[in-house]
């Protein structure tokens, strides 16, 4: 069963076509990750799924309905998107930011319902941001800041969450922290998570479903253990590598060839 589906999608950026006649399904209740090299269009694709970019042709179907025909607030109650590298205004506190996630449920007279309060509180709890709620977002570290933005999308209380490179600019500890948080949201609350990730190994570890994008086409899609291999990496990233098994998780682990120091004889020689 799919929650989002793209049918015969044609997208262009200015005059340059990015996708032509593309079909795609995002499975419900799973973690789906788009992988692909820079400029492959994976981010454009993610944004178009969230109606941030209008396709020239084709339709995006959300829960069986065309996204273009749904009121934008209704879409916002079903699907949240966190764009890449968002910036909060100077001095805006975490609480004030997270509250904005309630926008699709509010009106001028209803700006802080009991439901709003509950959802904001929950979002702050899940992301462990309660203690920072009165701190300005711009005073936080990179990882905390990203958690604040994720809290905002959680306050939107949507069954589906899209994230464009949520771990960019974070150190490894915080990358894992963010991805663990998203993993828990999927496991415990059964939310559908769709994201763009740069790190193939982390993609293989967290994603149930990967979609490999290459030059405006979907090269392959499926479970990482079924589709990620040397040939795919070569074709999609134009990189020679060896795909082995992650010693802890058993998921595919991609080790690039190239230069570097060799300390002892490689264990997995090819």
């Amino acid at each position, binding site marked *: 069963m799919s929650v989002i589906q793209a049918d015969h999608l044609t997208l262009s950026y200015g005059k340059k076509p990015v996708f032509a006649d593309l079909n795609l399904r995002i499975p419900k209740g799973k973690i789906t990750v788009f992988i692909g090299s820079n400029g492959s269009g994976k981010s454009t694709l993610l*944004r178009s799924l*969230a*109606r*941030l970019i209008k396709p020239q042709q084709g339709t995006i179907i959300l829960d069986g309905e065309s996204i273009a025909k749904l*009121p*934008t*607030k*209704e*879409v*916002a*109650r079903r699907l*949240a*998107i*966190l*764009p890449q590298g*968002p*910036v*909060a*205004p*100077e*001095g*805006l*506190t975490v609480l*004030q*930011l997270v*509250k*904005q*996630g309630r*926008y*699709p449920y*509010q009106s*001028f*007279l*209803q*700006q*802080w*319902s*009991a439901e*709003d*309060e509950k959802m904001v509180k929950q979002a702050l709890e899940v992301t462990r941001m309660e203690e920072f709620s*009165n701190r300005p977002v711009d005073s936080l570290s990179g990882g905390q800041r990203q958690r604040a933005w994720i809290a905002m*999308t959680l306050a*939107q209380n949507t069954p589906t969450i899209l994230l464009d490179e949520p771990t960019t600019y974070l150190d490894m500890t915080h990358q894992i922290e963010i991805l663990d948080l998203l993993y828990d949201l999927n496991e415990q609350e059964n939310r559908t998570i769709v994201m763009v990730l740069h790190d193939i190994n982390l993609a293989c570890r967290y994603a149930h479903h990967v979609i490999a994008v290459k030059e405006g086409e979907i090269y392959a899609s499926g479970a990482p253990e079924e589709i990620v291999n040397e040939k795919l990496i070569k074709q999609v990233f134009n990189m020679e590598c060896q795909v082995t098994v992650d010693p802890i998780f058993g998921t595919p682990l991609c080790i690039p060839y190239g230069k570097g120091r060799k300390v002892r004889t490689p264990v997995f020689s090819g």
Partner: protein
Amino acid sequence: MNRWLTLRGAKHSFHISGRTLSVIVLLLIGNMIAMTLCTGLGSTPISPVNVIKAIFGQSDATTSMIILNLRLPRVVIAVMVGSMLAVSGALLQGIVRNPLTSPDIIGITGGAALGTVVFIIYFSHLSIQFMPVSSIIGAFSAAALIYLFAYRHGITPLRLVLIGIGMATAMTAVTYMLILSAQFTPTAVAVKAFTFMTGTIYGTSWERDVLTLLPWLVVLMPLAFVYARHLNVQELGDEVAAGVGSRVQSQRTMLLIISVALAGAAASIGGTIGFIGLMAPHIARRLVGPAYGGVIPVSALIGSLVLMLADLIARTAFIPLDIPAGVFTAAIGAPFFIYLLFRHRSS
């Protein structure tokens, strides 16, 4: 620590920062005091007690005449024009997501001034009541031109500011050209036009000025407050705003219309009083943070306070000369703008 108040009923619910509320109350008191002081001070000083007496009809005819007919309308206009310029600036800074802008910097008040000067030179045979209309037409024409030049699949903030700065210069140039080249312009008319361009609220009256401006204020100010919510999400960036279900472009157009109408209406009475639209929202953000539910009312109160005080200095510092208030807002505003540029240099 900031305490939050929750107001919740069957059909309404609000979340108000305690800090914002106390700042608003203090500024309201400050405005009241300033109004009383400004009404009292002048070439004939009148004590605050007598000012209040006169307002409630408890004084002699001369004092009552000075207070009610000469000074009070001018102070009321300072409150109205100051707050309208401030809110216009606050909206504009939010729309373009750039704190270094205001209706005077991007040429909207320049357009209004041009509209007014055209009226002074070519249509002075018509009733003075039409002057604001001419001014607002000027403001909207300037805004429409900026919008037209800046539009390419929607409006991006940076392009709007850059084109606006060019527009401001062009508007001033055209206005000066008009004043200087109109062959039959009597010197008195030229002086009037020049004074207007500096920004002054000299010689205001209840009927001509206060009543003309009032409908604009009554409609536009609440509308600005209602739109604060949309501006809050827009401040997070277009994609985030669209993601949470905001109709970004149509709301931005509406916000721009409110901002331009506020500046245009204010300029029709006050001329091009500069920098209030720039300074007031900055001070407001310093006091209550960047959320617009607080920034809009606080900016309004600061704008009115600043213009009241600037006008007080303008008409009392060099008695019997009455200097345009715009000179003094510029005197504080220009260094402030440089300070802002300096502070934003690093970011």
